[in-house]
């Protein structure tokens, strides 16, 4: 899985893409963890702009990244979440335990 990311001032932004389901989640999870381990950011931003579909496997991806950032005493932010993934994240109350920077305009 190739995920585009960039780092600035110890802020790591990772752009998630495509369809996040059980088939793809493990690899996405591992890639996100690897990037966090390499860059040790103070803030990690997961950008959902190009996520075309997400089921509850994506919740596990976010929780995994959140645990990783908590260990580093950093923060996890989610941004640009389209309506479908947002509804799935909200079903798990993710908006209560992570920061959502910007929602995608509907």
């Amino acid at each position, binding site marked *: 899985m190739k995920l585009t990311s960039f780092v600035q001032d110890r802020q790591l932004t990772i752009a998630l893409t495509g*369809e996040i*389901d*059980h*088939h793809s*989640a*493990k690899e996405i*999870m591992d890639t996100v963890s690897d990037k966090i381990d390499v860059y040790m950011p103070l803030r990690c931003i997961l950008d959902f702009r190009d996520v075309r*579909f997400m*089921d*509850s*496997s994506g*919740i*596990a991806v976010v*929780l*995994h990244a959140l645990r990783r950032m908590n260990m580093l005493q950093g923060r996890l932010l989610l941004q640009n979440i389209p*309506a*479908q993934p947002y*509804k*799935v994240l909200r*079903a*798990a109350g993710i908006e209560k335990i992570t920061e959502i920077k910007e929602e995608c305009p509907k």
Partner: protein
Amino acid sequence: MKGENYMNLEFPSKSANEAFARAAVACFAAQLDPTLDELGDIKTAVSEAVTNCIVHAYPDELGPVILKARILPDNVLDLVVKDRGRGIENIEQARTPMFTTGGDDRSGMGITIMESFMTEFHLSSTPGKGTTVHMKRKIVRRGGKK
């Protein structure tokens, strides 16, 4: 005229079929003229049900996943997802939000999401025999001719 439409699919419990299953149901459901939101809910529920067969019903082997879709009167999509896998010992527990017997790549939210995204949801299971999810989603009829 009104002969109700349906489709039946059977495929092995390979994770690559998750995307196929939800796309197939989305194409079938298109005749009900759903909104993007409605289609998103349906795809999510199908993905959850099929994933559960793949991950939980057949943890160590491949087995058949049966997917049936029907159009019922009043613009209702009727879905059945069935496996002949290990079954569920305690359904109440399985329905609990965040409960999972899977690893840390599972969230335990699949059943909760199916229940809340669909109009009707029914789960039946026999340990050692398999599990069936039966769900319905009413598609709101919007303006325009049909």
